């Protein structure tokens, strides 16, 4: 969670968040206000990350607030993306970002000792994120094609994998994503949750594989794609450690 917050903080501080774009370009707020909000968000996210990294009973309420704030910022980012029409799939930005939004908020609830509906919320968020990504994969989202091609092909003039092969791979990925998105709603399978956490890690890390280390913020903000399914795995594994 802290990593996700730091990734988002980096984007807000050194680049421009989609909330900034929405405020300045579309809503015609002045640039200073939009920029100041980004800076405030960056500082806030770093503070939240620091709080989350400090274990201790007394910090539970503070950590809960920090986690909730991280979730709210991701909600703001996804809302802005949804409104901005900046890609062919931006109308799906909110359900795609379900894990980024919901995981920190559920963590906040757990830290406050309110964990009754956490598992259900997490399952829905995992299903939503996997279903949207699966749908986009079946639609051959060009960004996903490039992730495959840039990760599998060395920098040569004659690639090992062509676009046609990448499209077939995306068909398989999309079908599997949709399948597991459906299954996670009905099955309490640690293997399923483990697979989803692993796949979340692979797809997050593929950003750096494709674009190099400077894409680390894109990897960091997707750590919730690992954390969400991993929490389900820990809940569902036979020798449950986390209290239900």
């Amino acid at each position, binding site marked *: 969670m802290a990593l996700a917050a730091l990734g988002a903080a980096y*984007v807000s501080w*050194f*680049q*421009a968040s989609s*909330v900034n774009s*929405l*405020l*300045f*370009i*579309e*809503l*015609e*707020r*002045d*640039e*200073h206000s939009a*920029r*100041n*909000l980004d800076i*405030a*968000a960056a*500082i*806030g996210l770093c*503070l939240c990350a*620091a*709080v989350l990294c400090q274990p201790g009973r007394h910090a539970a309420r503070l950590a809960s*607030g920090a986690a909730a*704030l991280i979730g*709210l*910022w991701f*909600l*703001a980012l996804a*809302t*802005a993306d949804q*409104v901005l*029409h*900046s*890609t*062919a799939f931006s109308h799906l930005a909110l359900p795609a970002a379900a894990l980024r939004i919901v995981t920190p908020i559920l963590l906040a609830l757990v830290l406050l000792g309110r964990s009754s509906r956490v598992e259900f919320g997490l399952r829905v968020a995992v299903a939503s994120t996997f279903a949207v990504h699966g749908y986009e994969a079946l639609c051959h989202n*060009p*960004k996903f*094609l*490039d992730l495959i*091609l*840039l990760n599998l*092909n060395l*920098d040569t*003039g004659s*690639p090992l994998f*062509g*676009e046609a092969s*990448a499209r077939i791979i995306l068909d398989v990925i999309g079908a599997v994503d949709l399948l597991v998105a459906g299954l996670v709603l009905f099955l309490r399978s640690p293997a399923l949750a483990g697979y989803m956490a692993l796949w979340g890690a692979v797809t997050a890390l593929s950003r750096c594989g*494709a*674009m*190099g280390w*400077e*894409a680390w*913020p*894109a990897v960091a903000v997707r750590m919730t794609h690992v954390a969400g399914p991993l929490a389900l795995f820990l809940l569902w594994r036979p020798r449950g450690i986390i209290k239900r």
Partner: protein
Amino acid sequence: MTLPGLKFTLVALALGLACSQSSPTLQGQVPLALDETADTGVTGNTKGNQPIQWRVIWTTDPQHRATISWSTRKETGDNHLRIWPKGKDSQHRKVVAQHNGTFTLNVSEMKDLDPVYYHHVRLDGLEPGVTYEFELNSDGSKSRTLSFRSAPAIDSTESFSLIYGGDSRTGKEDRQRMNRLSAELTSRLPDAIAFVHGGDYIYDGRQFLQWTEWMTHDELRTTSDGRVLPIIPTRGNHDIGDLYDEVFDTPGAKGENYYHTTLPNGVNLLTLNTNISHAGDQRVWLAGQLMGLRPDSRWLLAQYHRPAYPAVKQPGEAKAAWVPLFEAHDVDLVFESDGHAIKRTVPIRGDKLDPTGVVYIGEGGLGVPQRTPDSDRWYLQSPGMSGRGHHLTTVSFSGDQLRLVTQGFAVDEESGRIGDPGGDSVIFDEVVMQRRGAE
């Protein structure tokens, strides 16, 4: 961490969320009928078969080919143009529009809007470097006489200029001002042959109402004597959907929209599409083009929308997929858009300053509010530059030199809009590049 600090952050975040949720109607979604636009150059537009929204489009082989397009508000059966070399009206020929159709309306537009029709005449067999006059005709209604010049021959050594700009999706008054500036520059630069548009014409490419406004505003690029500068279009991330192909007659193949434009005097321009896979078929095509073109190119150029070396945001996939090819084949100059700022990078090779590297300019200022660039980025340091202002860049080729002049209007600091729309344009950047191996 202090508690007051956290409180401040909480308040700031809450305010930000409140701002984003209590938004008024987004600019760019205001309906505007064709004949409600003031000062567009369309006069007497009362009949639905009046040809309006003319544009000349170049893709490949502009020495011999061009598409001339226009719109009508009624379905018309006879759509053609008359074209003749300037001053030789007796040599006129009639060419029937080969490609006609209805602009795609989205579901909400279907309820409120009558269909609007596009007409594309695909001209072939033009003579290089000839000024042609033409007159559009739909069911007897005629446009005024307009003109454009075909590209000079590829082996011609005459000087010529391109005008480059991008990002006209919001800020419609400023968009119109920039189009008027483009017309002024076209009048001042008799050797200007084309307008290279870096994409993001409109806010939502699936909304015809936005495109029809853009096409009407685009008429403002026409000079007072009727000269139309052909447009070489690029798809921006906001230009999604079918309407882009309907407006520009599918530049490059359907679903691809990437192509090679042969310009005079050994100048070659590759237009790429950052809305589709960068690293797939497009990259294979790009590698083949660069390999074939470099030996005979005096200047090798590329243009696309999302930057590899941005002044504001994070790099797009172009950096990983295309930059290594640009460097391997010594591309000279790349046009980028999307960031809404002015930039000219240092020459870059291997992600470092290298005098033999590739220069990237941009990145979008045809009306969209201008951002403050992140001028601390290493590639924007001197001898590169960055700035803030609505801008066009004239790219002039003469002998072994290429002159870049970026000019436009200073912005209001708060809004990023043109500070004084009635004022004169200013020059933001001027630099001369020497052709590789010609020092």
